[in-house]
């Protein structure tokens, strides 16, 4: 026991002594174990006492040695740090302001770095050698359309890719929405249907159990096995240790859980996936000939290139294999090009909008950091002038200029590190908020502030501290001795003044540029929110039902049940219309921002439909109240009525764009079109509806055909639309309960407003707007402080001159105006430069904006006005002070 105590006490001894004598002292301690308690106590006290004495002795020796040798750099550093702390404590307002400015700037940077790191650099977790893993794209030019690239391919393409010699491995997957559980416990989940090869290709290991094997994903009958995500394991099973082998209900079927994926695993994309299941379970539901169909395209295919294989060579091989294997009639498929891109690319092979915005925002946050640095530099210059006397005395006492420089740079670095530490807190808050609100579709597996962010922040802070401190330090230590002998603040060199003014102008310039960017994004968001979509997204609820599976029924029972289900939604409309708050309800197959069905339209007397560049016509089957429910105006002709249904004469309503494209200057009402391939019977056009956006906020008008519900052939999947008098969410619960009461086979009712379907497309603009606004406002505040501090300095510096002017009869308001003119002058310079920069960068920003020019004069003008106002406000106090200068006192303080 005494030995253990001694071991602990030895830690109190100086390291050198401990190394030399520690072992022997422990031996002694062991011998003491057997002796009397009083001896042991005395020994312990003696050990403590000697430790203290030895430490004091060592400290004395070190100081002595340093004074003699000056060979202890750590001592000097420590001294400077302690001195810096004391010095900053004497000016807490200055230190606090600088730390806060740097905290906000570095915090924003750290938050963005964390996001950019994930989106642009790291990509999905758990991917080994990610540079060799690539997604397959097909580019073709269908008739009547421009070149069209897609990552969605069919199983037949997967088979082709698998055989390529440049691919070491190939895998395929599709992420779908589904439900788990039944009835009241039903929850929406994301299901990743994947080939068994996906996991080995990515190089991921299961956290528990196993992934599914090839035999379980056979094309003749895949097994219902599932690998759950770490998140689902926690949410649904409470991290139970016996989760393997338990059953999980997915889309009303039981699955056996065979494994748990590692935390953060999201496959080859960044979005959340709750469950992985064999791909062929999904394939069987797509269409009957899914193995050979060229038109069913529901899969993503990824490959791992062999070592040393050039991606272009791989693309050539894939194209050759594809075009050779294609056995259909479509020319554009025979001329298609198959190629690959990294996992970070979007569905059409280009950089995703989110990545582009994040890239921009990283640039923005760097700008903010620069502004903050300029401001801090300005403040340090001012502070240096205040300390001229102190520094001069130090020089006189023998401190070298290098020592002074080191001391000042350590001070600025310390401030920077404090700011950066506070900034991590800011980063945590901002990063978390940005992820949850604007980037919620991505699975964030690490915290907003993780090890990498920490490291980058630390390095940035240190570099920034040195950068920010060096220039003022060099300036301030120049002629420190001579300056100290001059009394008063007067005598600030012209050089320093020009430097400070330049820094202030730089701050203003950057603020203007940022605010212009923010203004443009704000306008984009506003425009996006007010786009005329052709319907009312906020008041319409989309209702889709999931049902118990038909397995277990014989064929005739299955057909009867299917027929009943097809007619169910239309049959229950009157009940839904009776729900309080519901203004109207309808059923449709083929909704905007939902399922899209293309169709072949033949017009008698026309060889082919005119080319529009926006693709061929699409089709929806709608119930008579559809247009009223959606808020889509009928421009000509009539709406469908209850007599237009299955079996009645075929009629159609077309979009206004189709009307003017196919029958320019003529009335399409009463004309005949033939729908389908081969062309169906003559369908009479009875009405023209206004154009609606079908898939994107930014969309050129398209040709669209509406036919009565019940007359559709070859496509299906009805959804109910409910229009409410207030916002759509308010009636969701009532509608849900009406539906579940009306049909016991319904397992889950999914409701979503049309606005929610469109929201994801707004996200990148919202992200841009939030960040730019925050940065712009921060920059504005910092600039205002910068202007104020410079003006205050100028007034103090020129007190004598002001006093002379006043003594010679100048009016007080004239003197005040001098200050205001300085302020306006600096701001105008900043505004001019800032506008030039913003205009120059406008070309790069334009693709990110929506229906607003990157050089919009209203935005530029407003920002200029704001900065002028801020500059005026900042000059208020200094100008008042200048006006109140007492000429006698100013002249006396010479």
């Amino acid at each position, binding site marked *: 026991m005494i030995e253990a105590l001694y071991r602990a006490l030895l830690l109190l001894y100086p390291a050198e002594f401990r190394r030399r*004598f520690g072992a022997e*002292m422990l031996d*002694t301690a062991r011998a003491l174990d057997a002796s009397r308690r009083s001896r042991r106590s005395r020994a312990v006290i*003696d050990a403590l006492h000697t430790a203290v004495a030895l430490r004091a002795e060592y400290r004395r020796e070190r100081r002595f040695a340093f004074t003699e040798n000056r060979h202890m750099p750590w001592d000097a550093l420590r001294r400077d740090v302690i001195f810096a702390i004391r010095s900053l404590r004497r000016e807490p307002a200055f230190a606090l302001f600088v730390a806060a400015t740097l905290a906000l700037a570095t915090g924003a940077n750290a938050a963005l770095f964390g996001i950019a790191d994930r989106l642009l650099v790291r990509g999905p977790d758990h991917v080994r050698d990610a540079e060799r893993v690539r997604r397959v794209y097909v580019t073709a030019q269908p008739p009547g359309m421009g070149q069209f690239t897609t990552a969605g391919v069919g199983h037949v393409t997967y088979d082709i890719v698998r055989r390529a010699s440049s691919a070491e491995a190939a895998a395929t997957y599709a992420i779908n929405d589904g439900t788990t559980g039944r009835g009241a416990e039903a929850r929406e989940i994301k299901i990743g249907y994947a080939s068994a090869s996906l996991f080995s290709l990515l190089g991921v290991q299961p956290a528990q159990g196993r992934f599914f094997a090839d035999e379980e994903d056979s094309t003749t009958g895949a097994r219902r096995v599932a690998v759950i995500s770490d998140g689902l394991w926690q949410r649904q099973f409470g991290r139970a240790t016996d989760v393997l082998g338990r059953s999980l209900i997915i889309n009303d079927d039981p699955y056996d859980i065979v494994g748990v994926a590692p935390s953060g695993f999201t496959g080859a994309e960044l979005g959340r996936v709750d469950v992985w299941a064999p791909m062929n379970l999904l394939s069987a539901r797509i269409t009957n000939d899914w193995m050979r169909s060229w038109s069913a395209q529901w899969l993503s295919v990824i490959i791992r290139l062999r070592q040393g294989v050039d991606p272009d060579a791989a693309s050539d091989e894939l194209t050759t294999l594809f075009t050779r294997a294609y056995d259909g009639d479509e020319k554009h498929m025979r001329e298609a090009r198959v190629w690959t891109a990294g996992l970070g690319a979007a569905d059409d092979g280009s950089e995703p909008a989110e990545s582009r915005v994040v890239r921009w925002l990283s640039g923005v946050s760097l700008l903010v950091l620069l502004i903050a640095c300029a401001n801090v530099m300005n403040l340090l210059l001012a502070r240096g002038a205040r300390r001229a006397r102190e520094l001069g005395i130090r020089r006189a006492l023998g401190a070298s200029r290098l020592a002074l420089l080191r001391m000042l740079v350590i001070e600025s670095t310390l401030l920077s590190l404090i700011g950066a530490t506070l900034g991590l807190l800011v980063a945590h808050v901002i990063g978390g908020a940005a992820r949850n609100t604007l980037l919620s579709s991505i699975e964030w597996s690490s915290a907003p502030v993780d090890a990498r962010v920490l490291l980058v922040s630390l390095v940035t802070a240190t570099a920034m501290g040195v950068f920010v401190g060096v220039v003022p330090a060099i300036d301030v230590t120049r002629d420190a001795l001579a300056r100290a002998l001059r009394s008063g603040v007067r005598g600030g060199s012209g050089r320093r003044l020009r430097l400070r003014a330049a820094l202030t102008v730089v701050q203003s310039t950057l603020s203007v540029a940022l605010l212009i960017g923010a203004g443009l994004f704000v306008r984009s968001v506003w425009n996006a929110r007010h786009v005329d979509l052709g319907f009312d997204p906020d008041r319409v609820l989309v209702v889709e039902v999931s049902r118990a599976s038909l397995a277990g029924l014989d064929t005739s029972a299955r057909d009867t049940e299917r027929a009943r289900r097809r007619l169910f939604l239309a049959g229950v409309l009157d009940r839904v219309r009776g729900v309080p708050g519901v203004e109207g309800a309808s059923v449709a197959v083929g909704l905007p921002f939902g399922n899209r069905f293309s169709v072949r339209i033949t017009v008698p007397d026309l060889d082919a439909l005119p080319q529009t560049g926006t693709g061929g016509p699409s089709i929806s089957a709608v119930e008579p109240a559809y247009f009223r429910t959606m808020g889509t105006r009928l421009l000509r002709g009539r709406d469908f009525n209850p007599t237009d249904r299955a079996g009645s004469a075929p009629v159609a309503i077309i979009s206004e764009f189709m009307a003017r494209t196919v029958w320019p200057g003529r009335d399409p009402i009463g004309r005949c079109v033939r729908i389908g391939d081969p062309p169906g019977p003559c369908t009479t056009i009875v009405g023209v509806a206004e154009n609606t956006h079908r898939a994107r906020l930014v969309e050129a008008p398209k040709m669209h055909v509406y036919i009565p519900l019940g007359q559709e052939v070859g496509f299906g999947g009805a959804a109910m639309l409910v229009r409410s008098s207030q916002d759509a969410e308010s009636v969701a619960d009532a509608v849900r309960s009406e539906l579940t009461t009306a049909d016991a086979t319904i397992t889950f009712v999914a409701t979503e407003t049309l606005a929610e379907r469109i929201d994801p497309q707004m996200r990148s603009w919202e992200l841009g707007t939030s960040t730019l606004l925050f940065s712009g406002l921060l920059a504005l505040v910092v600039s205002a402080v910068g202007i104020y501090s410079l003006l205050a300095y100028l007034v103090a510096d020129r007190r004598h001159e002001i006093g002379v002017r006043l003594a010679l009869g100048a009016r007080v308001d004239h003197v005040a105006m001098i200050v205001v003119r300085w302020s306006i002058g600096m701001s105008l310079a900043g505004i001019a430069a800032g506008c030039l920069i913003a205009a120059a960068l406008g070309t790069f920003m334009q693709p990110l904006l929506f229906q607003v020019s990157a050089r919009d004069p209203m935005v530029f003008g407003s920002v200029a006005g704001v900065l002028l106002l801020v500059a005026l406000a900042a000059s208020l106090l200094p100008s008042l002070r200048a006006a109140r200068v007492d000429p006698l006192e100013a002249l006396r303080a010479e």
Partner: protein
Amino acid sequence: MTRPPVRQPERPPLELTPIGFEVLLSLAASPLHGYGIKLAIEERTSGDINLGSGTLYQAIQRLEREGLIAGGSEGAVRGSDPRRGRTYRIEPLGRASLENHLRRLSRALDYARAHRLLPSAKR
């Protein structure tokens, strides 16, 4: 027996602290390791001086630095149980300093006895 002649040290003998004196006295006859020094002192002073190891090694370090003793290689010392630990031996300067100190003590003892401050030594 005749003692080997003391090599003349380069430096004059140093003043000794009481503990330093005791340590050198213990090492005068033969090298000892740390624990052995402690035991020797306790035995010689009949338990009056009981050094804590902190104090002991602090003194040993000081004596080493001043060149009065030197720490040798590890190994067992003849006559005591085998132990880990360095053995220390007295250096010429240490011996000279010890002798200097002893001479002074001896003169003081003679004076004390002559003035009946101490009982005479039993011969």
